[in-house]
């Protein structure tokens, strides 16, 4: 048994491709992002940005106006004006962006730059808040008050953080998406292990299947070794972000670790499932690796890794997707605990993640427990 476990680990850790995705790629991304962050704060932080606010008559949404006005003087200088005028000013560059206070608040910008990205992230953070406010209002009206208070608190912590020239919440969000991605890259490890379990997927697996080994312990050992290696990679990534890049992700370490680990389990399970499925006859390991990479990227894309607007767009249009997208679940749960200090939301996300993991792993075990194949 020990022998088996030892080699299961060795095989993973020495796999260059797998370790690249699971460990080095996220570290590279984190480094790149921290570099752009430093540049950004050196050059252009603390400049107050001129913006216009256009209130629509039909769909005036006072809470958004309130939110924008509350930022007045700290991040932005707000001028309430008509749409025509705002567009002229935007054209001339006198304002950097125009916020529309419609039912779905929106933003017009002329160019892409750091200021514009700050504006869109402000909008994004409002939308995330609003979604949460609405959710709580529907489900637990009595808790609305405390939520609003906690939001205010977290708002002030964020501002404080910003004063100390540390991370703003949008940058934190980016790192959370990154952690989500890194966790889900556990899929590569899961895939690798699944390919070795089924005789109809590889000759290596066939060789293992003819040995006098019970299947179930083999499946369990292979999955748990993948999870262990992935959790370790993530620990290294978090350590790297914290100690080497010197970026603080907040003080809720236990929560962050818990989310990351459950994220890793979910990632491994997704990969294991994709590996266990016989999608077509001759589907090679390589094709499946690409499939896992593609799925993970798609999940991260929808969760806002590439642009923050994506997640709020989805929150607006297909909120259900955010509730089942593993990347969004991981990022959301981190955000809800670190930025909004909302434990309920946090645990809700975790429970969904655990549920999905159990579902995927059960399907995988059902598939891989079969021992005789129609085709090899």
């Amino acid at each position: 048994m020990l022998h088996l476990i030892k080699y299961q680990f060795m095989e993973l850790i020495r796999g260059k491709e797998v370790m690249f995705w699971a460990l080095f790629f996220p570290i590279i991304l984190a480094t790149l992002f921290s570099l752009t962050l430093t540049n950004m704060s050196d050059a252009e932080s603390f400049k107050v940005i001129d913006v216009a606010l256009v209130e629509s008559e039909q769909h005036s949404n006072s809470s958004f106006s309130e939110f924008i006005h509350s930022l007045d003087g700290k991040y932005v200088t707000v001028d309430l004006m008509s749409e025509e005028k705002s567009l002229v000013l935007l054209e001339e560059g006198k304002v950097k962006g125009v916020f529309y206070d419609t039912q779905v608040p929106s933003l017009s910008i002329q160019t892409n730059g750091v200021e514009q990205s700050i504006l869109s992230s402000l909008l994004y953070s409002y939308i995330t808040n609003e979604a949460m406010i609405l959710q709580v209002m529907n489900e637990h009206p009595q808790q609305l008050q405390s939520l609003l208070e906690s939001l205010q608190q977290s708002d002030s912590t964020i501002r404080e953080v910003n004063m100390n020239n540390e991370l703003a919440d949008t940058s934190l969000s980016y790192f959370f998406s990154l952690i989500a991605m890194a966790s889900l890259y556990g899929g590569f490890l899961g895939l690798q292990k699944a390919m070795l379990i089924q005789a109809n997927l590889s000759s290596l697996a066939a060789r293992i299947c003819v040995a006098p080994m019970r299947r179930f312990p083999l499946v369990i050992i292979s999955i748990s070794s993948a999870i262990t290696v992935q959790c370790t990679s993530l620990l290294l990534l978090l350590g790297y972000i914290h100690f080497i890049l010197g970026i603080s992700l907040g003080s809720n370490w236990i929560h962050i670790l818990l989310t990351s680990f459950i994220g890793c389990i979910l990632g491994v399970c997704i990969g294991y499932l994709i590996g266990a499925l016989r999608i077509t006859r001759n589907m090679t390991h390589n094709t499946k690796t690409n499939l896992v990479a593609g799925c993970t990227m798609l999940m991260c894309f929808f969760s806002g890794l590439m642009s923050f607007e994506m997640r709020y767009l989805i929150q607006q249009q297909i909120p259900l997707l955010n509730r089942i997208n593993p990347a969004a679940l991981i990022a959301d749960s981190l955000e809800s605990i670190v930025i909004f200090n909302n434990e309920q939301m946090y645990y809700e996300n975790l429970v969904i993640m655990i549920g999905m993991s159990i579902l995927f792993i059960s399907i995988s075990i059902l598939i891989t427990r079969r021992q005789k194949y129609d085709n090899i």
Partner: protein
Amino acid sequence: MSNIIEVENLVKRYKELIALDHLTLRIKEGEIYGLLGPNGSGKTTAINCILSLLKYDKGIIKVFNQEMTPTSYKSKENIGVVMQNVAVFEELSVYENIDYFCGLYIKDKVRRKQLVKEAIAFVELEKFQKMRPKKLSGGLLRRLNIACGIAHKPKLIFLDEPTVAVDPQSRNKILEGIQALNKEGATIVYTSHYMEEVEQICTKISIIDHGKNIATGTSEELKQMIKTGETITFSNIMLKPFQLDEIKNIARVFHVQYEDGNLQIKCRRGNHNLIPILDYMKQNNIVFSQVSSKLPTLNDVFLEITGKELRD
């Protein structure tokens, strides 16, 4: 000697394709049993069914006198398999690969260490122990593949085309190795589409075609089964049609084929087939550049039973 493997009327279909068509095999302890057949004849499919990796549609499979199932762990302990494709971990070294697979059978660490050492010596990979498979040449890789399958000293060893794409030197080493394993007491099931190899090492042979066992026996027995006892070939020979008929009437000649100046005569078994034919050529002043006589090969057996060459 008792049967180690009994396969009775095994049928395996892949959708419409019938890969195994009522295949029956009886393999006795101590044999080097050859499954000889062209590519696609169903050799690998047969082995995968026997190993209980593949579902089959019909038939009975017994190994060590027990019905074989995926959970026949007792039987599996005594089986070693060398798959047709090289199946080793890229991430592990030569030593670690052998140790890994041996460890699936042998739990005792000390004993395993000894066995792995012996396996490495057996395939002569001592110098490459620490190397990763990627760095090994095709022949060495095949030898590693074999070592992984036999390190635990199984009583029954399946080798599925272990010499495909191997240089002649490695091939001979492999064949000698298989005979050595057999001398130490292992029963071997060996598949190949090279008749020379099968003839060289196998004590018993089944010729497989389209999933059917079309003939079984020692290579001598197989050759006795067919009409041909000797094939005589003349090159660059000029014959008139009536002469061809006259040659056909010589004793024991049962088949002549004349094409592009080459004459092939097949004779039934008997002594001195060549002499009456040469006499005939001399009497009729027929000239030719070369004559050769050859005893039947397994290819002739295959040809006569199936009407096609073993190797197309």
